[in-house]
């Protein structure tokens, strides 16, 4: 009324001069993220994977490419030998349906998000990259991973990761 509303607005803005800013100074500090974060990488345990390709069938975009061939000895170990396991992270939308689909807990979402590259081709993640990467799976669709803490350098072995 007659300027009273404006004065109230001024008071609120002035009071913010004395409050602590909400800013998180990236990259020195990072905003905390949570166990179920669907990060920008995938964690794959080869010894649990059987090449059933449920993940590839369930993906809405068809970004996973799996090629298998007959194993040398069908009576020992897996029936299939996995030749190609590519995930095109350039096209992936990180919905996590593939992780939900995997019946053997072999595929997990990762927790990293700083994976910039220079070319589109290098965004396709191949099987050896997945084998040798640091494994820090996130708890998305894997409720048993919820309380697990990761130390900064270690990665989770496949025995601890599954049910």
């Amino acid at each position, binding site marked *: *009324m*007659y*300027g*009273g*509303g*404006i004065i*109230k*607005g001024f*008071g*609120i*803005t002035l009071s913010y001069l004395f409050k602590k800013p*909400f800013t998180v100074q990236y990259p020195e500090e990072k905003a905390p*993220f*949570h*166990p*179920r*974060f*669907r990060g920008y990488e995938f964690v794959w345990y080869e010894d649990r994977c059987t090449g059933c390709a449920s993940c590839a069938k*369930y993906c*809405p975009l068809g970004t996973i490419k799996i090629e298998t061939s007959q194993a040398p000895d069908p009576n020992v170990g897996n029936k299939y030998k996995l030749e190609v396991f590519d995930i095109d992270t350039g096209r992936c*939308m*990180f*919905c*996590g*349906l593939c992780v*939900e*689909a995997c019946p053997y807990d072999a595929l997990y*979402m990762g927790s990293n998000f700083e994976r910039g590259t220079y070319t589109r081709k290098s965004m396709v993640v191949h099987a050896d990259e997945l084998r040798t990467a640091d494994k820090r799976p*996130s708890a*998305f*669709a894997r*409720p048993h991973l*919820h309380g697990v803490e990761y130390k900064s350098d270690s990665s989770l072995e496949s025995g601890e990761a599954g049910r």
Partner: protein
Amino acid sequence: MALKTEPIIVNIGPQHPSTHGVFRLRVAFDGEVVQDIEPVFGYLHRGSEKLAEERTYTQVITLTDRLDYLAAMSNNLAYCVAVEKLMGIEAPERAKYIRTMIAELQRIASHLMAQGFFLQDLGAFATPIMYMFREREKILDLFEMACGARITYSYMRVGGVNADLPPEFMPYLTTFINEMPAHIDEYEGLLRENEILITRTKNVGILPADLAINGSITGPVLRASGVAWDLRKSDPYEAYGKVKFEIPVGSVGDNYDRFLVRLEEMRQSVRIIKQCMEQMPPGPHRVDLPMLLRPRKGDAYGSIEGPKGELGFYLVSDGGVSPYRCAIRSSSYINLNLLKEMLVGWKMQDLITIFGSLDVNMGEVDR
């Protein structure tokens, strides 16, 4: 001899700081007064309805995220409600409460963003946006705890939700809900009684109630025009029948009413969330369904009251794994029907603010 004048045609183009997405308006101005408009949209068309015919029912959930990308949980919920109606199943009690709570949190987040950008269009240089986005950050943190992503969630599934709420969700939510009314009071104190805002938005862009009903407008725009119609009250879905809340109804239908209605709806959402938190029963969070759903032949229409209006899905199934037809009744697209009636006769600055107060999201309009 009278002076021959002609109106000046300005293209408020797809790239503009305040068209809320890629929306093009060709406006004929006579000085500063709008005489005629011609909206052109379709710049964000991605063929969601056609793509939905190629995907299975669960994969379509990832498509619905991208419709109204600022309020994705509501889209997921609308689709899941439609599929459940088609299949004739019902989600368990706990899932209903979780869905209600998440939908109300999403409503708060969407209204925060709508109000922030409406006030930015009015000229309050970024201050309301910064305050409101701080609260929206906390809500997005909550969603990240629940499902792992901040914008495109794909959290709801047919028959429930993807996963139960993690243990750190409730304490964070309790803190947030307890301090949210103070923040809403702050937004009100900053701008509700501001004389400049009132002179700028009162009696501007009036939408009479009968015109709104004839034009199929829904959502806060309809409620601001004086019609007390809310799908949560007239046909309660999920857990809305068991919580007590009220719907704010305006009287005149101008920009100021729409602004006030959205502020009040945020308060009512806080009330609903508090009751959901108290009443939440233990139980399963999902109905046990096979991975590939094959509903019976037939069709169903399911809709919810989203933050922008009534969002509905009409699904036709032929017994296969993908829908035969998925038609989307999007609230923003239908709300744009009456743009010409609402804009003609006002000045250029009012055009921007009226469009901002309609709260249109181009992802929904173009699908």
